[in-house]
């Protein structure tokens, strides 16, 4: 492949995959937990939280990116906290791109997750309780595996979003080659060129091929996992 792809393109591809994977790793656990809470618990403000979860897609990505820049920038409250305590810097780093992509993907992940927790009716959990497993264990052994199709569905959707994320990313971590210039940003940059569409079209094709391959792969993996753990369809 690297015969046909330039170094810069190759860098953008690996960076995109890396960013999207980290984004999902960051966003999935809280999405699953919050999805469960929203699906199964009733509490005051439930509907509000449910709506607030959608904020990252309701606002223009630039706004989200800007808010991230303010919060997680070098001078930002959270940014300096993470830098001082964990030594993690987000600003203008690929980790920041992953953070942005994860946050933008969050609402997309949580919806199918929540849905699949809603659709299972708790009867199997009752059986598990009666067999002596605690709430936590039951969640891990019964509820979670049964919600797997939804979790994987959300993860695939979120992964796609993370691959394509652009507005929040460029606003938060800029468009630095090799560090934050993902395939999406590279494509955007190429589109700014006045010297013709060739580069942009080339990158569009690359972005499509890479993303679709990644999606097909994740779809296959998730279908297999689903079949193994979910067992609804043998």
């Amino acid at each position, binding site marked *: 492949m690297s015969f046909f792809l330039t170094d810069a393109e190759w860098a953008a591809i690996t960076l995109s995959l890396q960013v999207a994977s980290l984004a999902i790793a960051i966003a999935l656990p809280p999405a699953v937990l919050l999805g469960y809470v929203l699906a199964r618990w009733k509490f005051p403000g439930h509907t509000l939280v449910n709506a607030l979860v959608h904020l990252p897609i309701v606002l223009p990505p630039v706004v989200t990116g800007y808010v991230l820049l303010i919060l997680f920038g070098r001078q930002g409250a959270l940014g300096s906290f993470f830098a001082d305590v964990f030594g993690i810097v987000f600003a203008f780093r690929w980790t920041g791109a992953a953070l942005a992509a994860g946050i933008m993907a969050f609402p997309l992940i949580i919806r199918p997750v929540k849905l699949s927790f809603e659709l299972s009716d708790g*009867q*199997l959990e*009752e*059986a*598990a*309780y*009666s*067999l*002596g*497993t*605690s709430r936590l*264990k039951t969640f891990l*052994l*019964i509820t979670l*595996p*049964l919600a797997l199709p939804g979790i994987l569905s959300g993860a695939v959707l979120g992964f796609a979003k993370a691959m394509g994320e652009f507005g929040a990313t460029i606003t938060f971590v800029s468009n630095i080659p090799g560090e934050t210039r993902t395939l999406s940003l590279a494509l955007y940059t190429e589109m700014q060129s006045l010297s013709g569409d060739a580069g942009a079209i080339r990158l569009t094709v690359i972005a499509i091929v890479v993303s679709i391959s990644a999606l097909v792969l994740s779809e296959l993996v998730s279908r297999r996992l689903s079949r193994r*753990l*979910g*067992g*609804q*369809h*043998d």
Partner: protein
Amino acid sequence: MIDLDISSRVGDFSLSAKFAVNSGITAIFGRSGAGKSSLIRMIAGLAAPDAGRIVLAEQVVFDRDRSINVPIQQRGVGMVFQDSRLFPHMNVERNLLYSQWAAGRNSGVGLGEIAELLGISHLLKRRPFGLSGGEKQRVAIGRALLSNPKVLVLDEPLASLDASRKAEILPYLLKLKNEFGIPMLYVSHSLGEIEQLADTLVLLDQGSVVAYGPIAQMLSNLELPQLVNGPDAGSLLFAKFSQYDTHWQMTEFSLEGQKLFLPGQLGTVGQDARIRIKAKDVALARKVPEQASVRNVLCVCIEGITETAGPYAEVDCRVGEQHLRARLTRHSVHELQLAAGQEVFALVKSVALDQ
């Protein structure tokens, strides 16, 4: 074992129950929609009553006034649900062993033994999807048995099983009670099952406990027959094993000084046995019939005769200290001129007896 006094309301349906029963097998009996499932859900801790208290195996597991509500995991209740509720993402073996690997419970009985008994050994590697209705229910029973429960709660566990499978599992449930001393709550609408299993009967109708008590007493209760559907009403008699005839394979019991014969070897000398005799299987005669295959002829004393509006009459008899009911036609009562106080002979075809 269980002492409760609860009330609850869901939608139009209100349930109120108050009873106390001791260990052994307690049957909960009632028509479809009577509230049986609702009641055991509250006992197991899957639903909370609106008011009242539940004491389970000496422990107060629920008390609305004192805000006690022990979670189901700590109630030690093994449940078999009306719908089997197997975990679809585990194979049959993982389902069966669930409480062992997931909850660290250890049961005295082994997987192999239970699987063999329930006839599911060949299914161990299968997923629940595709199992037949009865297969699912058998796995569910096995799963509950293997969870080492303090109390076993079964919601119509045998309804979807064939008679021979039923006949195999029933004695095993008895064995669980006798050998492991596991008390059971047994929901059923089959009086046959209940008579064979239960020590105590709780009768539920339209959400209320109509009556409860020891099974023998309940079965000779006059109101019962209407509730429990005529053809199955009967008496329960306590007898002692006296001897076994190996040639004819017949067991002789002594019942209040008289003899009763049952086919098969049914115990060891001196052992107590309970014998169920359906009222409709008892005929009365003023003379002992000669040269007839009716082996069991008991000398009884008529205590009372209740004629119904229909063609039947219920004749209550006394055998020593115990009660035996016969259901004859009014016509027969008239023809034989039966009346209270008479000494007559109760004819019971031996093979009509069950243990």
